[in-house]
């Protein structure tokens, strides 16, 4: 019986050879799909001439020029002027002077990155706080038209961002919220709260009601039981939901490019505007992209067990 | 045939919801098909009808 099952023709117990072939194909796919990301990382460490060399350079002398250009603005100066300066203070000074330029000041990358952080964390905090309250109510109480309300909440996330952006643009212009971090936080909270409610409802559904009921028999009020019993039990779920909300707000581009232009601009609309002398400064873009993507790689690893839940709004759990 | 009619006449959610789904799908296909401008013109009305129908029939008993 068991021997009959370990043949090449078994789905339950595949043979060693079929496992090897499957593994080889999957690993090949994984490696090929990593090529663009590897190229981003490599481009960040190239010099501008290396980055646009033909044929594309796979082996190159690493340089920090991309990162220096990402964080600074530079002006072209005469040889005499550069020689009249003192010795270079930093490694970036040295690199820019080799190109007959001096550092004029910091670039906008750090403020844009900071905006992304503020807006992503602000909207995540609001969305998860609102979401956990609503999710608890939907999970534990009989609410009239609960299914319709839940569908309404979900449908708001499905809407095409450009279609929503037209009235939001007009509304924000009237309210003075255009190009403010507060406006973006409100908007991303509204988009994320739907995901938060659906995901957290799934997590709270899994916590046995008996826990709160026992606490309430001990004299806790409902609110007390919610804060002291349910919230700690749902901590993992809340963390996973928060990371999903962070990822959305971090990656969002459509609203950001239409509704922010200066003060509150986030990194995604900023990175494509990085230009050097004579076209795109690809090493700087590569450096900016790398720094922008690193948090996402960390999140992917943290979330790998909950990913499926997140992308199906909590419906598929394992 | 009369069996099918009976199923719809009892106003149960299942068959009506499937019908509404078909109407919505037909509307979306009409919107994106490359064959006839007339079908494209009527796609919005079809999608709207299907969606309204879906919202109404989801209130029918299981």
């Amino acid at each position: 019986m068991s021997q009959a099952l370990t043949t090449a023709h078994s789905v339950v117990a595949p043979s060693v050879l079929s496992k090897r072939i499957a593994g080889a194909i999957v690993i090949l796919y994984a490696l090929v799909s990593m090529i663009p990301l590897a190229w981003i990382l490599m481009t960040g460490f190239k010099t501008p001439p290396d980055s646009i060399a033909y044929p594309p350079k796979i082996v190159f002398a690493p340089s920090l020029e991309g990162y220096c250009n990402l964080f600074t603005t530079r002006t072209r100066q005469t040889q005499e002027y550069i020689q009249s300066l003192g010795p270079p203070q930093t490694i970036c000074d040295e690199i820019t002077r080799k190109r007959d330029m001096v550092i004029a000041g910091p670039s906008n990358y750090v403020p844009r990155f900071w905006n992304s952080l503020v807006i992503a964390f602000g909207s995540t905090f609001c969305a998860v706080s609102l979401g956990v309250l609503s999710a608890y109510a939907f999970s534990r109480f009989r609410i009239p038209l609960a299914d319709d309300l839940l569908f309404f909440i979900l449908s708001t996330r499905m809407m095409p961002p450009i279609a929503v952006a037209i009235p939001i643009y007009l509304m924000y212009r009237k309210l003075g919220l255009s190009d403010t971090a507060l406006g973006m936080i409100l908007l991303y909270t509204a988009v994320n709260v739907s995901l938060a409610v659906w995901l957290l409802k799934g997590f709270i559904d899994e916590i046995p009601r008996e826990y709160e009921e026992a606490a309430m028999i001990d004299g806790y009020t409902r609110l007390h039981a919610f804060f002291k019993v349910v919230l700690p039990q749902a901590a993992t779920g809340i963390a996973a939901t928060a990371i999903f909300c962070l990822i959305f707000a971090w990656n969002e581009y459509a609203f950001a490019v239409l509704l922010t232009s200066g003060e509150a601009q986030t990194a995604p609309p900023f990175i494509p505007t990085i230009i050097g002398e004579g076209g795109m400064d690809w090493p700087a873009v590569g450096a900016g992209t790398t720094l922008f993507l690193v948090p996402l790689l960390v999140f992917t690893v943290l979330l790998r067990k909950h990913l499926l839940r997140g992308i199906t709004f909590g419906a598929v759990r394992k | 045939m009369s069996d099918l009619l009976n199923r719809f006449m009892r106003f149960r959610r299942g068959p009506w919801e499937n019908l509404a789904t078909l109407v919505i799908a037909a509307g979306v296909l009409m919107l994106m098909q490359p064959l006839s401008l007339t079908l494209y013109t009527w796609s919005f009305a079809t999608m709207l009808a299907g969606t309204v129908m879906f919202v109404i029939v989801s209130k029918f008993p299981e």
Partner: protein
Amino acid sequence: MGRIAAPARTRRIRGLSDKAIAWAFIAPTMVLLLAINIFPLIWTIYLSFTNYQANRPNRPITYVGTKWYRDILGSPDVWAAMQATAHFVFWTILLQTLIGFGLAYLIDRKFRGHAFWTTIILVPMMLSPAVVGNFWKFLYQPQIGLFNSIVSFFTGIEPSSFEMLGSVSLSPWSIIIVDTWMWTPYVMLICLAGLRSIPDYIYEAAEVDRASLWRQFWSITLPMALPFIMLAVLFRGIENFKMFDMVNLLTGGGPGSTTEVASITLKREAFEKWRTGYSSAFAIILFVAVFGLANIYVKALNRVKQR
């Protein structure tokens, strides 16, 4: 805290609270969604019947009836944009479903290290479509780009002899390739859940009956994973129907209007030509399509829901 000292008060609050708490907990979310989603939606419906232009806020607003709807639904240009969207949606879904399901089927063989490689494969879908799309522009550069060099390495075609982004015949495929690279992992992950939901004993029974692997695939694997595949297809369909960020950065709708998908047309009308009334009507049309599909999606979601 005082819960023993004042039992009567506690009970009164508790008796009152359940319903009150339920509404107090839901109300903030609803208020926010009403303010940021429903109110703007109603405003859009109103604007779609007027000739309002956002760059001329002081001009008197006149009512134009269903003119914009008739214009859009009779316009060959918008129809062409819908077909560009259809081309994009059709091919991305087809490629992602085939590759994604294939990968899931192979990963389900549970070879050594499959969990690690699955995580690696999932990385592209977590990234920002805009930031990564922007970088693909570099990969697609005719001479210096990596993509053309790799194609030329395998086929021998001169790397500078074709332009992925600049030519009318290739640019629709350039966005399909990036989207497939990015979202195949999404389909793969959901298909994997579908395959894992099939209990082993069904296969064991089929093997006792000596059903071939081919038969097992068509009569067990595919039918039982189908609700999951449908879920993935519907969601990708909705997402790609409204695709904006990656296409906007990669081709911006060009060359000409070959990759001008619906959202790009909408952006041009709304934020470049400032035809707010017209674009509001267009937004409502897209909106109804997405709302209808979202209904179907939730139906599919309930079908695979696990308790």
